[in-house]
């Protein structure tokens, strides 16, 4: 699939067609998600209206995790199969993922203040999200810390892959900590402890953010493909000048 998409022209042709669809789905789910989460969802019996923060917090958290996974996978593609497109994909994912993990931290804090009376608690999930955020940050800083883009891409990809091994361990190990956090309720599919009516806006928001991210990734990859073309053109004209001058 990736191999097949790796051709830039094919990538452009296909995305040209599906991009509007993705955008449309993102908008529809976002608007309806917002409607349900703000207007048409029940108050939690304990948290009251404060539970509404969940509809931005949890989707952000999910996306931060999912995007990191995709980032690392695309880094594997880049390092192992050396698809240049894979690097563009990973470098497009990274800032979006970093944004979502930052949003998770901020909205979580905004949730924590009314619920726990404190902005921050060194609880397992919070800590591992913080670590995730630093993996994103490390990836971004490292990929820009080299003179040659390719060196930065390779080095940062290594970091992302190490993170893929390390993050589950971090998550798992940090879970040893006693937690104030609520138990994972969606995961317990057997009997979700939250209201079905709360589930709907949650799922809608997750879809909205996922499609939005997908759209943004495609957009960024396109931008980078064009930038690459520009660079190649510039280089070519430079080299021609050099050979003329020589």
């Amino acid at each position, binding site marked *: 699939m990736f191999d097949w998409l790796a051709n830039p022209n094919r990538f452009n042709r296909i995305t040209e067609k599906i991009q509007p669809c993705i955008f449309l789905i993102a908008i529809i789910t976002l608007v309806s998600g917002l409607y349900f989460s703000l207007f048409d969802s029940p108050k939690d019996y304990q948290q009251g209206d404060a539970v509404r923060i969940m509809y931005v917090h949890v989707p952000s958290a999910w996306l931060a995790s999912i995007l990191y996974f995709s980032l690392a996978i695309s880094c594997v593609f880049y390092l192992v199969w050396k698809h240049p497109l894979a690097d563009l994909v990973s470098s497009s994912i990274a800032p979006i993922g970093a944004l979502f993990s930052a949003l998770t931290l901020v909205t979580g804090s*905004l949730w924590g203040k009314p619920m726990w009376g404190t902005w921050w608690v060194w609880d397992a999930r919070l800590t591992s999200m913080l670590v995730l955020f630093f993996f994103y940050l490390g990836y971004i800083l490292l990929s820009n810390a080299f003179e040659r883009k390719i060196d930065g891409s390779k080095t940062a990809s290594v970091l992302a892959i190490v993170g893929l091994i390390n993050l589950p361990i971090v998550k798992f190990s940090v879970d040893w900590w006693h937690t104030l956090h609520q138990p994972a309720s969606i995961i317990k599919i057997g009997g979700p402890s939250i209201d079905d009516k709360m589930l709907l806006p949650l799922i809608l928001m997750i879809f909205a953010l996922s499609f939005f991210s997908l759209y943004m990734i495609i957009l960024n990859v396109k931008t980078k493909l064009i930038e690459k073309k520009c660079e190649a053109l510039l280089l070519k004209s430079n080299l021609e000048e050099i050979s003329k001058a020589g």
Partner: protein
Amino acid sequence: MNELFWVMQGYEIYIWPSYVLTLLSLGLLFVHSTKQLQKAKKLLKQLSKTKN
């Protein structure tokens, strides 16, 4: 829209910022990336023009 909705049981100072922040950053990301794409496209056009 009634007053009660905006106040949200006194949680409004937590709820609205989280929504606004989320939507704002998504919006900014969208605008920024689209601009970037437009810029790149323009540059490419210029370059291919000067080449020919």
